[in-house]
């Protein structure tokens, strides 16, 4: 990188050969750049590493390593806050660096499932607490007093009896030599000084000044640029490639066919990939490669069925992938047929079939949603520098530990010769869980014998699959002659997997309950997409509950609360996957904060609530129609995620989920036609933009001392239901089929 390096700063990541994720290089691109800072930039002359999470400079500055990949969920700020809290350091003295993959000291270096804070809650605090203990011990020895007589605050150890104080900076070199204590006590919630406050994003200054941060920004000496070409449709493969001509184009070094994974390799879940064989083109600069790529002479063919079976190139452990060029209309028909013919029961309470037969009336509704592309703003990319001795892999990846194994297998290098450094990511949403692009970069670098940065164009990215599945859910409610809910039935499936969550609300609240699932095989590849499965089933369920409440003549919030009361007082069945009291808690909070009892004139409101990834969220969305287009005036959100670590950042995450969900509910889809994604770039694939975002979002947290749970995903699923329910109030019509903007040509 081009920023200057201060030679008096020694940011060495120690070179340690450790089985399963060792660090092989002494210099780290990130360490060579200025670390992310919350306060003044006075850097120390020397750092003393107290433990793998933190080092202290002689001037009292503290560098905290942030272990997990950063996708915008801001763990790079909140995880260090946990360390800093127990360390008792002034946050202004804290610098943060991204830790590389290091499986010997860090656990679960992964971005996904909204688990980083929840799973790091104790370990990160312990790292800070043990360091604090070692500093106190150093002070005790220097002062010649018992450790018990010392206190710490803001980076200073004090001995009250004598009035002596020593700063952490003076103690660090001695503390670094002391043994790490076992069993140090952690603070109680009431003593928190950092946790629960709002701290600014540690990378904020770098982001707004355009510093190199993302994988696509990475540069290394002698680095080449690579791009790939993949089949134009799912169900197709390379037939032939004439690559001699393209190799003569300006700036082009090589072009070749390669396989991301070798035949016979048993792929892990994170090795999800759409096309077995790709064409690589390598050159000196991105534009030269993009230009040359356009003139690649490639022929494609349909993957044939094999042995009378439909079977495409990769057979995962769990089934065959059909051949053929698929289209969305056929998908819809297949889902409708499957829902009626091949559903299997996952949960049954009571005797729902009998109750439905005798019901006074039945409400039945079907909901669908299309494939979605993740469309992270930063397209897929990765840097690799592979030789016979080692592989240096740098870039945006949500699963470095998993992909290290894949890279090791593919490149024929043992784990300790693989070094993975995580850059900041321009969005994840689950797409970068599947690190085929990391492996591809490694293979290309190995083949050309040079450092290579592989870059996907937006077209490559959007048409590379790993989509959010297409889904279909039918809900039925049996209603008695006194307008009571007697039985509840959900039948949910998708292509190629079901979204069903059989043990979630209202399971447990209804005596007679049936949950069924099915799936339709497809060669369209899919992957986890922000709150997998929940991102569809929540909206469908919450829209149905709304319509059901109306059918029963009840207020939508009171109806849900009455069911939750039942689930609390006399739960039905086993393994009900929610706490009815906490679930009711967010509904009550949103009812209160949105002033639900008094609706403003001209404003249509919809309510929705959901529990997923360990947190509870309820939302009220308010909109009005303008020229047949919904204008979102306000969203009020109530969140129960236990202790809130970084208050304003938690609000930001909730806001983002809400905007994201509104956008997908209303606008986004990726239809498939003859195996081809219909949209290939953002000029036609619709994502929510400024004008369509809510004018106002209010976020309220349930006050809690429960250990924190995540926020990357929980506020996302319910908003889909709130949109559908508000649209109903505004237009008099119910919305069932996302994207809603198309359903009855809302836009005209």
């Amino acid at each position, binding site marked *: 990188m081009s920023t200057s390096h201060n030679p008096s700063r020694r940011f060495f990541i120690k070179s340690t050969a450790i089985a399963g994720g060792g660090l092989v290089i002494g210099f780290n691109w990130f360490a060579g750049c200025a670390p992310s800072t919350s306060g003044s930039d006075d850097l120390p002359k020397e750092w003393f590493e107290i433990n793998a999470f933190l080092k202290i400079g002689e001037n009292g500055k503290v560098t905290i390593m942030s272990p997990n990949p950063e996708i915008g969920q801001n763990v790079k700020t909140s995880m260090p806050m946990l360390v800093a809290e127990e360390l008792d350091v002034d946050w202004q003295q804290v610098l943060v660096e991204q830790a590389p993959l290091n499986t010997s000291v860090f656990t679960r270096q992964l971005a996904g499932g909204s688990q980083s804070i929840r799973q790091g809650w104790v370990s990160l605090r312990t790292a800070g607490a043990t360091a604090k203990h070692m500093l106190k011990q150093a002070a005790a020895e220097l002062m010649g007093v018992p450790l018990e007589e010392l206190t710490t605050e803001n980076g200073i150890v004090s001995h009250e009896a004598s009035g002596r104080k020593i700063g952490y900076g003076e103690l660090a070199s001695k503390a670094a030599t002391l043994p790490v204590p076992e069993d140090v006590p952690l603070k109680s919630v009431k003593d928190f000084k950092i946790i629960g406050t709002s701290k600014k994003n540690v990378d904020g200054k770098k982001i*707004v000044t355009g510093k190199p941060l993302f994988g696509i920004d990475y540069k290394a000496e002698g680095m080449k640029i690579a791009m790939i070409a993949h089949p134009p449709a799912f169900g197709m493969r390379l037939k032939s490639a004439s690559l001699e001509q393209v190799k003569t184009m300006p700036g082009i070094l090589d072009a070749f066919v390669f396989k991301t994974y070798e035949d016979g390799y048993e792929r892990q879940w994170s090795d999800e990939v759409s096309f077995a064989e790709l064409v690589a083109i390598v050159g000196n600069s*991105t*534009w030269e490669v993009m230009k040359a790529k356009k003139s690649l002479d490639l022929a494609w063919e349909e993957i044939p069925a094999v042995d009378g079976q439909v079977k495409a190139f990769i057979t995962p452990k769990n089934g065959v992938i059909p051949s053929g060029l698929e289209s969305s209309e056929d998908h819809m028909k297949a889902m409708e047929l499957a829902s009626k013919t091949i559903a299997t029961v996952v949960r049954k309470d009571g005797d729902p079939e009998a109750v439905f037969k005798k019901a006074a009336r039945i409400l039945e509704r079907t909901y669908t949603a299309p494939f979605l592309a993740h469309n*992270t703003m930063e397209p897929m990319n990765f840097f690799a520098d592979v030789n016979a001795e080692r592989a240096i892999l740098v870039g945006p990846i949500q699963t470095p530990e998993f992909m290290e194994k894949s890279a090791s297998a593919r490149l024929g290098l043992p784990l300790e010769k693989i070094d993975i450094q995580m850059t900041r990511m321009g969005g994840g949403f689950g797409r970068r869980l599947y690190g085929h692009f990391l492996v591809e970069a490694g293979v290309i670098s190995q083949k050309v014998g040079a450092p290579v940065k592989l870059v996907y*164009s937006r077209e490559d990215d959007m048409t590379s699959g790993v989509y959010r599945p297409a889904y279909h859910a039918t809900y039925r409610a049996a209603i008695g002659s006194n307008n009571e809910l007697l039985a509840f039935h959900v039948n949910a499936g998708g292509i190629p997997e079901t979204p069903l969550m059989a043990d979630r609300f209202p399971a447990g609240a209804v005596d007679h309950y049936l949950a069924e699932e099915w799936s339709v095989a497809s060669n369209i590849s899919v992957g986890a997409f922000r709150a997998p499965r929940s991102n569809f089933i929540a909206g469908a369920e919450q829209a149905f509950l709304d319509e059901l409440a109306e059918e029963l003549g009840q207020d939508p919030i009171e109806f849900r609360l009455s069911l939750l009361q039942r689930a609390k007082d006399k739960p039905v069945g086993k393994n009900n996957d929610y706490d009815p009291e906490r679930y009711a808690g967010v509904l009550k909070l949103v009812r209160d904060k949105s002033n639900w009892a008094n609706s403003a004139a001209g404003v249509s409101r919809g309510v929705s609530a959901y529990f997923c990834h360990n947190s509870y969220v309820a939302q009220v969305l308010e909109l009005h129609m303008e020229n047949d287009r919904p204008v979102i005036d306000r969203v009020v959100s109530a969140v129960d995620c236990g202790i809130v670590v970084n208050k304003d950042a938690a609000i930001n995450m909730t806001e983002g989920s809400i905007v994201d969900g509104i956008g997908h509910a209303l606008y986004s889809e990726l239809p498939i036609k003859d195996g081809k994604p219909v949209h290939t770039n953002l000029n036609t694939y619709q994502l*929510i933009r400024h004008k369509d975002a809510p004018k106002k979002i209010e976020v309220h947290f349930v006050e809690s001392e429960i250990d924190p749970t995540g926020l990357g995903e929980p506020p996302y699923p319910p908003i889909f239901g709130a949109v559908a329910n508000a649209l109903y109030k505004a237009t008099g019509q119910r919305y069932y089929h996302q994207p809603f903007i198309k359903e009855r040509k809302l836009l005209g």
Partner: protein
Amino acid sequence: MANITIKVNGKKQNLDIDPETPLLWALRDHLDLVGTKFGCGVASCGACTVHVEGVAMRSCSLTVAQVADKKITTIEGLSENGDHPVQKAWLEHDVPQCGYCQAGQIMSASALLNKNPNPSEVEIEDAMQGNICRCGTYTRIKAAIQTAAKNL
């Protein structure tokens, strides 16, 4: 290849380059100015926004030949110390989540305020409609622009 001179952030830069190269890639690959981002390449996402003679433009869809005699400002040149009122407002409101779109957002916003120092909410939305934020920070972006307008 041709020898082309462009003026970026107050400095003349000589490039030995295909004149049809988009400005975006000249900045990122040839001048080490990676603050301007690649998002779509078809002027639909705004991540590549720069100022050309003070006007917000999508650098993915301008060739270096087209801007050879024009004054270009990128995010790196918006201010000396990251203290443009828009940048300060972005930090005050803690706008970014992943951060990838934000350089483009800031360039669009600063161009708007250059032209219209007191924009209405609708004028902000209109001017910023070409900049996608996949993480959904739109409400904060708008608030930051309103703050920056007060502090110009």
